[in-house]
């Protein structure tokens, strides 16, 4: 579906789908797309569907509607168009042209033996040698024109390569300047970019031909710059007397004959800057070469082409940065939305619980005041308070889970392995979850491995990982009368693996959802889930060099297997033993140390 992505402005990061025949945009609430920008009119513009495409129409807005820098009243949008309304910049993405599925049928990739395709590779060339194609063959004496054309093509090719190599604008501009100097006999050069906010040209790269005094300032006539930017034309200038176009301004230096080329960097949307080069032709050189000119029309043409390439790259890079920033904002927005929803639910629970306590106390006080404290009334009041307290406690637990999951997920933490026993750990979790299971009428079964040596892992993290999976299993049995969750541990000496399996006979997971269950903030439990549990568990297992495997069938149940390499504590040399408190806990591998 065609969409708009806000890449600048207060709504940055918002993605808007264009759905329907007419979609209105403006500051007012009645619009399908409401943008929070004071420079946008209440009813600013509308999008009308025309076939597959959308046409934007300005609805007489005060500040106008701009597409790719041009004011428009009506304009059919193409993918990649940039819309500016007020201070907000939006990127339009249309429907993908051409049907990908159809192409898959029309193009087949065959292995060579089949289908009688007898093609063979006649000549191969590394990608990097592509530019050689443009260098003149040695045995050919080509015309000077052809040689020049070749060299021009080559510099264009190299410009294209240079711009495709970096996302760093300064580096990119420096490279382009360098290439220009290799190609043309210029003395000084600089690239200036237009500041987005002020529109001022700011020098970014400056270069002098070697041997010339590099501290010398480059003086560029404002007249020329204005001409280039305003008219979007490249100019070739000379301060020789025969050209009187600049005389009015009299701002070109008068020392020898200075020739300059100044070209606009015209990108896709706007002029993003200028490239300037100049050369000083001294009277001696003029005599040598028999002409006062060094720069030609051809130089100018090629400079325009180079500047265009550079401008595209600059735009792409700026654009890319804005996109990254916008995507990041969108992600932050989603995170906040998801968390506040969950916290809101907890808050609601706390309010409910505390209100019950309040009412219980009120009833109790009332009974006391009336003088007749019947055992029954007191019992009832205390009963309400107890219920309230239970709810408050449960929500306190939910906050703690949420906070710990958030911490685990956000931190790039390394697990802190210490000798611990997996059977003991899982046994604790089963104990902890018994009440919850009973409440949901789920039978919780604990089947420890008969032999479980002390292993090296982060017990705190592993506790979270297993707890989240067990909680999910119990929740999955919510709709079943005979819900059953089986928790088993396993230690395989041969595979050097430790496993915790959690099997439930609950609702199960559809196959197409299996991939999604580990996505952050995707909960299948509605209001009950944070969407953090499984991602956190997976992160912890991965930090231990392990993984979580899932097998599931809808309406039959799921099996989650958490497995990680079983690392045994390093045996501590007898002499060092007294230095390590608690080292007596470490048992040899062969010993049966199962618990539970």
């Amino acid at each position, binding site marked *: 579906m065609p969409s708009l992505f806000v890449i600048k402005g207060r709504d940055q990061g918002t993605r808007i789908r264009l759905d329907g025949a007419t979609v209105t945009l403006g500051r007012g609430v009645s619009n399908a797309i409401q943008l929070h920008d004071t420079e946008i009119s209440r009813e600013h513009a509308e999008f009308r569907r025309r076939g597959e495409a959308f046409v934007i129409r300005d609805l007489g807005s005060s500040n106008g509607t701009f597409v790719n820098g041009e004011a428009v009243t009506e304009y059919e949008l193409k993918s990649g168009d940039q819309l500016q309304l007020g201070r907000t910049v939006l990127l339009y993405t249309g429907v993908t042209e051409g049907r990908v599925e159809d192409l898959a049928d029309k193009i087949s990739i065959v292995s060579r033996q089949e289908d009688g395709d007898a093609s063979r590779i006649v000549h191969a060339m590394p990608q990097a040698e592509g530019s050689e194609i443009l260098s003149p063959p040695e045995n050919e004496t080509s015309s000077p024109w052809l040689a020049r054309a070749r060299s021009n093509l080559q510099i264009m090719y190299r410009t294209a390569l240079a711009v495709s190599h970096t996302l760093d604008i300064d580096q990119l501009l420096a490279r382009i300047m360098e290439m220009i100097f290799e190609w043309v006999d210029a003395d000084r050069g600089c690239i200036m970019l237009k500041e987005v906010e002020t529109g001022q040209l700011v020098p970014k790269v400056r270069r002098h031909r070697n041997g010339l005094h590099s501290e010398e300032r480059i003086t560029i006539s404002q007249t020329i710059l204005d001409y280039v930017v305003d008219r979007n034309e490249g100019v070739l200038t000379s301060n020789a007397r025969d050209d009187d176009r600049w005389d009015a301004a009299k701002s070109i230096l008068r020392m020898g004959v200075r020739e300059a080329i100044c070209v606009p960097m015209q990108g896709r949307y706007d002029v993003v800057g200028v490239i300037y080069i100049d050369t000083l032709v001294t009277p001696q050189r003029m005599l040598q070469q028999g002409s006062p000119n060094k720069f030609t029309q051809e130089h100018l043409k090629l400079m325009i082409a180079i500047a265009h390439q550079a401008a595209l790259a600059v735009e792409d890079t700026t654009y890319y940065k804005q996109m990254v920033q916008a995507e990041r904002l969108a992600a932050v927005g989603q995170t906040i939305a998801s968390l506040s929803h969950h916290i809101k639910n907890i*808050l*609601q*629970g706390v*309010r*409910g619980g505390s*209100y*019950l306590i309040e009412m219980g106390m009120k*009833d109790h006080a009332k009974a006391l005041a009336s003088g007749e404290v019947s055992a029954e009334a007191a019992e009832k009041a205390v009963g309400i308070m107890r*219920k309230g307290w239970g*709810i408050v406690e449960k929500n306190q637990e939910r906050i703690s889970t949420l906070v710990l999951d958030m911490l685990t997920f956000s931190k790039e933490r390394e697990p802190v392995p210490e000798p611990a026993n997996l059977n003991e750990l899982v046994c604790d979790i089963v104990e902890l979850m018994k009440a919850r299971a009973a409440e949901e009428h789920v039978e919780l079964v604990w089947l420890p491995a008969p032999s479980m040596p002390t292993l090296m892992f982060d017990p705190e993290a592993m506790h979270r990982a297993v707890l989240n999976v067990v909680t999910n299993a119990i929740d999955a049995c919510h709709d079943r009368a005979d819900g059953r969750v089986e928790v088993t541990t396993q230690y395989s000496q041969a595979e050097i693996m430790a496993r915790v399996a959690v099997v439930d006979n609950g609702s199960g997971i559809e196959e197409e959802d299996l991939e999604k269950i580990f996505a952050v903030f995707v909960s299948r439990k509605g209001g009950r889930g944070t969407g953090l549990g499984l991602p956190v568990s997976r992160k912890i297992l991965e930090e231990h060099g392990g993984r979580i495997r899932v097998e599931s069938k809808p309406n039959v149940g799921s099996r989650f297997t958490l497995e990680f390499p079983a690392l045994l504590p390093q045996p501590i040399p007898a002499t060092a033993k007294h230095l390590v408190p608690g080292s007596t806990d470490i048992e040899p591998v062969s010993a049966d140390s199962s618990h539970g």
Partner: protein
Amino acid sequence: MNTAPSVLIVDASRESREVLRVLLERRGATTLEAERPEDAIRITREHHPDLIVFDAESDQTASGEPTDHLREFAVDSDTPIVILGKVRHFCSPSAAEEIVAKPYHYGPLIRKINSLLAAA
């Protein structure tokens, strides 16, 4: 009101249902419970509660159709309904429909329920 009024609580969370149940029973109402709006329609049809308290989040369908059905059903059967949270489809609220934004306070909610029951 001579007989104890009955209130149907529609909420996916057992905890929230429990809070409302205790509070309503404390003031002498009887309560019915449903986890989903789908079940709520059936219960309303069978037991004719005097009021429905409906948590919008108990509808877990993407379409929000069960919510629409329940609201229509409440209008048709002349049952006042208190909706907790946001409902997706904004049809014109009927006279006996109250929307309470989340997170809500229980005090005002109970008062609202009381006044609706008194008016019934």
